[in-house]
C-alpha cells in the first residue's frame, strides 16, 4: 500500500477487501478510512481474524459442560481438572506459512499456540502436532515439507522445554500443494492464576512485552492466511518477504516472565500478539472489556529503522504479548521483565468509550470505533450444495486386490498413513517437565501426571479421507476416535478443541462439506457429552486441482484418577485372552485398503449407534482403570487385522485369534471398537477372539505372519521417507 501510485480500489483490493466491504466501512465510519485505518480494518475484517464465513456456523457447537472454566472467545479453552488446577488447550493452524517456509512456518505455529495458552495464565505442558502432506512416494516436495515441518516443530518445542507428546500425520494427494500444519498446546494452571484478555480500568497502562517489532508478516493475516496460496503470482515467490523467524529462546523468557507477573498478581489482563499483531490484540482486549484503547506507535521498540506506522500496527513479529497494568504496578512489572531480560514498554492506555486511537508523536493517525473493527466485520452465510459424484481424484493403486491377506496386512502396515511414526517422534522431546507417563507409541493417548498423581490424557485426530467420503459421519468419527483413544488409557473426556481445515467456502460444495462437518462435530459432542471449548478455522486451502480433503482436526483432553493405572496398547502377558469390545460393523468405504487399491474417497460411512458407543467407551475406560484389562487399543485405520498387529508389535508378543463370522478384517469403523487383553474371567462379558502368545500373528483361516515381518513392515513405511 506504500505504492502510493495505485488507486484506492487497487489498494483496498490488494488488502483483501471486497468493494462491498469497503462500502460498508465508509457507511460505518461515515467517512473514508485513512491508510493506517484501512490497513487495520482490512486485517480485522480478513477471514483469519473476522471468521466471516464460519462465525455463524460455530455457534452450532455445544460449549457448556460441568468442567468448563473458559470456552470459545478466550485465547484458549480451559477445563477444571480438580485439585484447584485447570488445563487450558487449543489447536491452531499454520498451514499457509508452512507451505511457504516449512521449518519457520511450523516453528512459529508452535510458538503461536504456546502464547495462546500462557496468555490465559497456564504453563504449557504439552504440544501435539497434526500434519497433512502429499504422497511421499510420488512427491519430492511433500518429502521436503514433511522433513522441514517436523524439524521446525521439534526445534521450537524442544528448545523451549515443552514436551511434544503426540500427534498424527496423513499423506494424501489432495494436500500435495496445500499441506496442513496444525499444532495443539495444553497448559496447566492453578485456578487463581487464570486470566482473561478483556481490558479494563480507564487510566490503566498498556504494556508491550517481548521481541522488537520488525517487518515480519506484514499483511500476513490477509495475504498469507486468507488468500488461495497458489492464486498469487508465482506462488510462494510473492510471499517471500513476509516469512517470520521463530525465536524459542525469547519465548521461553517471555513465558517465564508472564507467569511470574501473573503469580505476583501484577496484571489486569493479558493477550498474545498473533495475526494482525497490535491491531488485533489491542482491539480484542478493548472489545471484550467494553473500553477504548490509545496506542502510541512512536513508543513501540523497532527492529528496523524507518517502519511506517501501519507496518508497526500490523506487524506479526513473534514472541510478543500485550498486557494491561494498573499505573501503580507498572514499576513492579518492568522490574520482573528486566530480571527475565524481557523488553517491556508502556505504549498506551485504557480509556472509557469505544474507540481505538493510534497516535504517532502525539498526532492521532487512526481513530476507529472498536466495535467497527471487531463486531462489524460482515458475516457471510454459506451457500452449501451437496456434491454428487467424485470430487477427488482416485489415488494411485498400490494393491490389485489379488494379494493374500498376509500380503495385504503387510502392505497396510507399510503404508505411510499407518506405518510407525517413530522416525518423526524421535525428533521430539516427549519427556521434559517430567510428567509424561505414556509416550508416543506406548498408548493411544498421551498421559501426563498431575501433582496429586491423577493424570490427564490427550489425543488428536482427523481422517480427512473419511470426511471427504461423508463429511457429517466422518467428522463424528473424529470425535468418537478421540474419545476411544482416551478410553484406552482410562480417561474420561473433559472437553475438546478443533481446527477446521477446509477449502474455499465460497464454493458451494466446500460450503456443504463445512456445514456438514460442523453438524457432525456438534452431534458427536452432544452424544458423548463433550463440550467444545475452543478451536481455529483455516479456509481457502486449495490447489488449482481443487480443495483439500475437508479436514476437521479434533483434539480431546480427558482425566484419569490414577496415573499408574494408565492403559497401554501393547499386549502384556502371554496367555492373556483377547477380546473385541464395542459395536463394530466395519466397511471398506474410505478405508486405507480402499485407498491402496486405488479407489476414490466416495460412499456412505457406516452408521454409528451412539448409545452403544458410549457403553463401549465406558466399559473399556472402567476396566483399564481397575486393571481388569491389561491392554486396550482402538480399532482404526486398517481394521481389526492392523489393530491386532499393532498390539503384537508394541508387546513383542504374538497372538492367535479367530474373527467373528463375516467380519471384514481390514474394514474400518473408527471410534467404535477395541482390541483388549486380560485374564479370561475379566474378558468373559465380551467377545473373546483369541489368546496372546507365540511369535506370530495368526488369524485363523486368514493369515499367519511372524512378528518380525510385521515389525519390519511397520518400521519401514515412513523410515524410507524421513
Amino acid at each position, binding site marked *: 500500500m506504500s505504492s502510493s501510485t495505485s488507486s484506492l480500489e487497487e489498494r483496498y483490493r490488494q488488502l483483501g477487501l471486497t468493494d462491498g466491504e469497503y462500502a460498508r466501512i465508509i457507511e460505518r465510519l461515515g467517512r473514508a478510512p485513512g491508510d493506517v485505518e484501512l490497513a487495520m480494518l482490512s486485517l480485522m475484517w480478513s477471514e483469519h481474524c473476522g471468521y466471516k464465513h464460519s462465525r455463524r456456523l460455530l455457534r452450532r457447537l455445544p460449549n457448556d459442560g460441568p468442567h468448563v472454566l473458559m470456552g470459545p472467545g478466550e485465547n484458549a479453552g480451559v477445563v477444571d481438572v480438580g485439585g484447584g488446577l485447570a488445563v487450558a488447550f487449543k489447536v491452531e493452524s499454520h498451514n499457509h506459512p508452512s507451505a*511457504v*517456509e516449512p521449518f*519457520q512456518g511450523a516453528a512459529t505455529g508452535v510458538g503461536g499456540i504456546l502464547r495462546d495458552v500462557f496468555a490465559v495464565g497456564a504453563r504449557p505442558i504439552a504440544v501435539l502436532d497434526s500434519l497433512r502432506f502429499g504422497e511421499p512416494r510420488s512427491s519430492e516436495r511433500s518429502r521436503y515439507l514433511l522433513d522441514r515441518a517436523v524439524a521446525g516443530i521439534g526445534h521450537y518445542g524442544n528448545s523451549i522445554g515443552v514436551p511434544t507428546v503426540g500427534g498424527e500425520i496423513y499423506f494424501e494427494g489432495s494436500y500435495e500443494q496445500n499441506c496442513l500444519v496444525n499444532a495443539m498446546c495444553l497448559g496447566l494452571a492453578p485456578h487463581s492464576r487464570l486470566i482473561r484478555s478483556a481490558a479494563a480500568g480507564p487510566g490503566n497502562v498498556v504494556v508491550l512485552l517481548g*521481541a522488537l517489532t*520488525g*517487518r*515480519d508478516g506484514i499483511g500476513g493475516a490477509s495475504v498469507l492466511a486468507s488468500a488461495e496460496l497458489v492464486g498469487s503470482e508465482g506462488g*510462494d515467490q510473492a510471499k*517471500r518477504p513476509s*516469512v*517470520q*523467524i521463530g*525465536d524459542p*529462546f*525469547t519465548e521461553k523468557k517471555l513465558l517465564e516472565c508472564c507467569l511470574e507477573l501473573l503469580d505476583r498478581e501484577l496484571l489486569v489482563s493479558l493477550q498474545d500478539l498473533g495475526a494482525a499483531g497490535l491491531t488485533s490484540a489491542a482491539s480484542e482486549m478493548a472489545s471484550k472489556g467494553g473500553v477504548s484503547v490509545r496506542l502510541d506507535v512512536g513508543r513501540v521498540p523497532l*527492529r*528496523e529503522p524507518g517502519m511506517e506506522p501501519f507496518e508497526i500496527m500490523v506487524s506479526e*513479529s*513473534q514472541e510478543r504479548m500485550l498486557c494491561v497494568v494498573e499505573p501503580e504496578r507498572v514499576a513492579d512489572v518492568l522490574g520482573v521483565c528486566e530480571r527475565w531480560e524481557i523488553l517491556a514498554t508502556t505504549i498506551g492506555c485504557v480509556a472509557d468509550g469505544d474507540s481505538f486511537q493510534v497516535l504517532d508523536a502525539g498526532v492521532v493517525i487512526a481513530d476507529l470505533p472498536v466495535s467497527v473493527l471487531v463486531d462489524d466485520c460482515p458475516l457471510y452465510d454459506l451457500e452449501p450444495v451437496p456434491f454428487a459424484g467424485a470430487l477427488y481424484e482416485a489415488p494411485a493403486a498400490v494393491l490389485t486386490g489379488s494379494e493374500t491377506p498376509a500380503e495385504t496386512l503387510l502392505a497396510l502396515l507399510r503404508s505411510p498413513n499407518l506405518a510407525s511414526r517413530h522416525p518423526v517422534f524421535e525428533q521430539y522431546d516427549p519427556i521434559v517437565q517430567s510428567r509424561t507417563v505414556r509416550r508416543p507409541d506406548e498408548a493411544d493417548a498421551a498421559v501426563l501426571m498431575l501433582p496429586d498423581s491423577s493424570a490427564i490424557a490427550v489425543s488428536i485426530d482427523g481422517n480427512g479421507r473419511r470426511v471427504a467420503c461423508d463429511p457429517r459421519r466422518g467428522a463424528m468419527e473424529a470425535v468418537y476416535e478421540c474419545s476411544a483413544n482416551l478410553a484406552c488409557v482410562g480417561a474420561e473426556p473433559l472437553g475438546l478443541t478443533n481446527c477446521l481445515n477446509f477449502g474455499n467456502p465460497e464454493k458451494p460444495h466446500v460450503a456443504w462439506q463445512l456445514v456438514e462437518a460442523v453438524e457432525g462435530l456438534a452431534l458427536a459432542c452432544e452424544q458423548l457429552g463433550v463440550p467444545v471449548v475452543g478451536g481455529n478455522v483455516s479456509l481457502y486451502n486449495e490447489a488449482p486441482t481443487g480443495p483439500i480433503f475437508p479436514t476437521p482436526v479434533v483434539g480431546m483432553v480427558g482425566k484419569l484418577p490414577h496415573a499408574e493405572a494408565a492403559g497401554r496398547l501393547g499386549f502384556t502377558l502371554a496367555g492373556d485372552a483377547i477380546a473385541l469390545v464395542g459395536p463394530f460393523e466395519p466397511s471398506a468405504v474410505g478405508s486405507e485398503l480402499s485407498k491402496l487399491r486405488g479407489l476414490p474417497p466416495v460412499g456412505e460411512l457406516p452408521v454409528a449407534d451412539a448409545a452403544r458407543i458410549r457403553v463401549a467407551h465406558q466399559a473399556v475406560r472402567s476396566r483399564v482403570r481397575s486393571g481388569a484389562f491389561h491392554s486396550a487399543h482402538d480399532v482404526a485405520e486398517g481394521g481389526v487385522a492392523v489393530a491386532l498387529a499393532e498390539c503384537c508389535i508394541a508387546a513383542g508378543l504374538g497372538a492367535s485369534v479367530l474373527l467373528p463370522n463375516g467380519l471384514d478384517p481390514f474394514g474400518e469403523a473408527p471410534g467404535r471398537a477395541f482390541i483388549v487383553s486380560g485374564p479370561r474371567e475379566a474378558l468373559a462379558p465380551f467377545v473373546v477372539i483369541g489368546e496372546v502368545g507365540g511369535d506370530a500373528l495368526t488369524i485363523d483361516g486368514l493369515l499367519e505372519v511372524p512378528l518380525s515381518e510385521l515389525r519390519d513392515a511397520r518400521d519401514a513405511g515412513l523410515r524410507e521417507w524421513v
Partner: protein
Amino acid sequence: MRARVLVRPKAGILDPQGQAVERALPALGFDGVSNVHVGRLIELDVEDPERLPEMCERLLTNPLIEDYEIVASAQ
C-alpha cells in the same frame, strides 16, 4: 576451483544468533561491537564455478530468508 559461499540472514529478518552474540560480548569486556550477524560459511571445490549461483538458489541457501555472496577462495 575452491570457492566460498557466504550466507547471511536477509536484511530485516530476525537474527536471534546475532543478537545473542551482540549481547554477550560487552559482558566479556568487548565493547564497541555492533550490528552483529551470524550466518553460514560453505567452502567447496567446484569444477564449474558458473553453476554456483544455481547451487546456492537450489540447495546451499534458503532464498526466502538468506542472502548469499560467492567469493573465490584465498587458497
